[in-house]
């Protein structure tokens, strides 16, 4: 009976802390009017002055969002602002949450599969929404807009305005603020402006007359799964020294820069400070972080799915590169066979190192999985050599690439990853789908100075840390045992530490010694008992 009355009273509407103030209502109206312009444009209402109307639309959306946040946070004392999160329909999988989820999902389906509905015209002038963005695109790169330019612009606006919201919300927390400035900067400069300006160099003589592929420099393979495809390699190689340097940078990014930074700081240097997917999750997705699934079952699904994606992307990329390499060593040192042997050697080295030195730090099913995956890949490579020329492994590289791009690149990262923010939380893609996060996570777990230190015995098991972990890590499960948190999936957003009411958690880079095996747990008892308690 009690639990019923309790839910009933929770369902009362329009009261603090879930009600909107008059200012917030007006701000919502303003933001929606900005979206309204885009929707009218999508239905082919012809706006005479495109520059003006696009500016009006983006300004209304931005000012509306910023005004809303100002109204929400500016008059309050700095501190944690989670009042009413689970009462508000939009942030607790209520009606508005589902509506928003459907709208976002619909948007992604149109964007990926039916761009003509928002005005993409392959021959001649764009119409609709895309047409509205033509002037801005021409101003930046000199070319007409595409659906990706529109998406990129809206994406950047979202990170900037919700970034400002986040900066106010966490104005007492310098770690959160610096991290947010960082993702805002990388999105605006690296993902949005620099690639557009780089496009202006195409055909110029500093590129030897070549054309660079579109390249967001912070987008690293395998997140950027297409980086080493034939057409891009050709473009890089045809663009003089700059092109060659960028290609080398792409290779160094994953094999040298990434391991060094991850060793020093954990994968957070990328996932919550630089990455665009992470950037959107941390800003626009912040209101939904509490919706991630914390069950051990979800964790198990996560490990299998995300590592399968890594295997998939490795196979796919190997196949694609293989398909355009030659066989004649006299023409070019890197041939089909040397490449495959190289891949096999590299995988064996990494796998061997992990199994020999770090075996005990892996979950049982992670061990089985790793062995399984390793056997499959090596078998495929071996199989190839025995089966002679023809397709790579058993697959056509083109088919493999197409299915990856459809399943992972579009459906997983876009439709599910972002469209379902209000249902599954803001990091579904990063947690279950991103192969880059998985590779960084593998390193973070096994070879990094990063950990979340648990402060002795101060945990009261309240559950704020676990609830607000966007990656679905049950942080409390470790904290209440006095154990450090060393998890492959942790993106280092720092929110667990921020929401902890007792100062229990600290993200830090420290010595490898004693990082995981925190046997010297300090729970407040005298030492004799501790030795007994710690005995397994």
């Amino acid at each position: 009976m009690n639990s019923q009355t309790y839910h009933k009273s929770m369902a009362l509407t329009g009261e603090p802390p879930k009600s909107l103030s008059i200012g917030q209502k007006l701000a919502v109206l303003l933001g929606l009017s900005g979206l309204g312009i885009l929707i009218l444009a999508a239905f082919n209402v012809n706006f005479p002055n495109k520059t003006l109307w696009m500016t009006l639309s983006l300004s209304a959306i931005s000012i509306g969002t910023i005004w809303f946040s100002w109204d929400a946070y500016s008059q309050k004392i700095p501190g944690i602002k989670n009042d009413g999160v689970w009462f508000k329909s939009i942030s607790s999988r209520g009606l508005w949450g589902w509506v928003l989820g459907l709208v976002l999902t619909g948007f992604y389906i149109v964007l990926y599969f039916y761009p003509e509905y928002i005005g993409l015209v392959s021959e001649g002038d764009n119409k609709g929404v895309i047409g509205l963005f033509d002037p801005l695109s021409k101003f930046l790169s000199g070319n007409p807009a595409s659906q990706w330019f529109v998406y990129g612009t809206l994406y950047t606006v979202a990170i900037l305005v919700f970034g400002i919201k986040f900066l106010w919300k966490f104005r007492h927390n310098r770690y959160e603020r610096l991290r947010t400035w960082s993702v805002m900067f990388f999105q605006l400069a690296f993902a949005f402006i620099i690639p557009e300006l780089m496009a202006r160099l195409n055909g110029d003589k500093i590129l030897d007359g070549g054309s660079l592929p579109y390249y967001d420099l912070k987008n690293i393979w395998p997140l950027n799964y297409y980086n080493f495809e034939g057409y891009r390699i050709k473009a890089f190689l045809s663009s003089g020294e700059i092109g060659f340097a960028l290609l080398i940078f792409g290779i160094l990014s994953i094999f040298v820069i990434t391991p060094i930074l991850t060793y020093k700081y954990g994968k957070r240097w990328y996932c919550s400070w630089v990455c665009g997917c992470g950037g959107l999750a941390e800003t626009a997705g912040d209101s939904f972080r509490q919706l991630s699934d914390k069950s051990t079952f979800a964790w198990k699904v996560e490990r299998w799915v995300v590592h399968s994606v890594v295997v998939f992307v490795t196979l796919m990329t190997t196949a694609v590169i293989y398909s355009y390499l030659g066989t004649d060593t006299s023409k070019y040192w890197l041939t089909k066979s040397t490449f495959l042997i190289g891949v096999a050697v590299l995988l064996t080295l990494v796998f061997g190192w992990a199994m020999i030195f770090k075996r005990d730090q892996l979950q049982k099913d992670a061990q089985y999985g790793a062995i399984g995956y390793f056997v499959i890949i090596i078998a495929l490579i071996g199989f190839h050599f025995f089966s002679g020329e023809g397709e790579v492994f058993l697959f056509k590289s083109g088919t493999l690439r197409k299915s990856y791009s459809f399943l992972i690149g579009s459906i997983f990262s876009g439709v599910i990853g972002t469209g379902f923010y209000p249902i599954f939380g803001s990091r579904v893609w990063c947690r279950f789908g991103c192969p880059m996060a998985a590779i960084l996570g593998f390193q973070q777990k096994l070879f990094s100075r990063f950990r979340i230190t648990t402060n002795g015995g101060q945990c009261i098991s309240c559950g704020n840390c676990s609830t607000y972990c966007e990656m679905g890590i049950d942080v409390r499960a470790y904290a209440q045992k006095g154990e450090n948190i060393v998890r492959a999936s942790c993106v280092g957003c720092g929110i667990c530490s921020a929401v902890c009411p007792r100062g229990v958690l600290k993200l830090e880079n420290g010595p490898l010694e004693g990082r995981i095996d925190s046997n010297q747990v300090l729970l407040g008892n005298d030492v004799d008992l501790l030795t007994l308690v710690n005995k397994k």
Partner: protein
Amino acid sequence: MEHIVIIGNGIAGVTAARHIRKLSDKKITIVSAESEYFFSRTALMYVYMGHMKFEHTQPYENHFWKKNRIDLIKGHVTKVNTRDKLLHIDGVPNLHYDKLIIATGSKPNKFGWPGQDLDGVQGLYSKQDLELLQQNAPNNNICKRAVIIGGGLIGIELAEMLRTRDIPVTFLVREDSFWNSVLPSGESEMINEHIREHHIDLRLGTSLKEINSDVKGKVKSVTLAETGEEIECNLVGLTAGVTPNIDFLKDSGIELGRGVKVNRFLETNVEDVYAIGDCAEQREAIGNRRPIEAVWYTGRMMGETLAQTICGHRMEYKPGHWFNSAKFLDIEYQTYGWVFSERRKKENEAHFHWRHTKEKLCITIAFDKDSETLLGINTFGIRLRHEVFDRWLSEKTTIDFVMEHLRDANFDPEFYKNFESQIVSKYNSDFGKSINLKKKNLKRIFQLS
């Protein structure tokens, strides 16, 4: 198979059960009238504030208990028959035990105020109290004002909770400054300011005379003792401390004081009956601790200790250095070792106090006047590393040493502004010293050779 029955599924009882399971194959049953599964009591406030749903306060998934073969019974124990080792439980057949652990926690204090049992008067301790609060104060239409009696940790939490729903709160504190029986005056004063900053009507040095009823037996107002002023309200929160929840043990033959009397082994006067957590009362206080410690951490530590005794390593309850923490609205508080308020301070205890000029940050370090050894530290708005202070207390370091190595003890998130140099320069000027602050050193912090 020996049957261990635990009454109460709070942190003490559940910790005992978990550790007994780790150490043995005994049959374990937990009986609770409050909730089906273990939840974090200290997190109830966040459910009312909408930070979490109730299920988020449950530290273990529901399948945990079956997997670990810990049986759960929901029911109220009405009587303990120690002669036949039987528990009488409402609506459930009698339960036989081989060993009994009493871990029934506390209940809110009621000091016999007129009107204390009226409709709309409540404490804040149990899940049922939270549900009652949902009815009594769902919003500021039904609850136009709340009056909170008792300036301690629960009182300020209740005030914070009600303010998230914009319910006006009057907070009656008997002392002339918030929680100054525990906190030194500088700290207590800072919290007074912070409470007022949150638009809470803080009345210091004010106590309750009576609670007045309307015609339906519902609370209408309270009358103050000092001025006779009447304050209209729809909710009265009684938060003047808690007392052990042991009424059902009255005729059981188990020796009771304010709580269940236990020795250092947490054994009661009756064989095979033990008590832990909030409801246990030590026959003699341990060190500076109170005989009854209603604190999350001590409940957990007693549970760990008793599990050893029950599983054949009979062991004294030997808590290490005192520590505790709380959060006063937006200000986090941590304490390690002993810092007493002016009222309870011992003769040899001296204090060093620093407070930030603008922000709500301060620390107080207690040390021995003669030997200058560290006695304890309180911090507000600055996090400290438990392990480091625990070590310094064990090593009986001097306050000079603490000042010199203060950076090692900081536990604030990365990139936070640090105040160690300000603190040390105040220390130097207060005591005529010339301490040089050392750089943070990972080798010292993590005790690496």
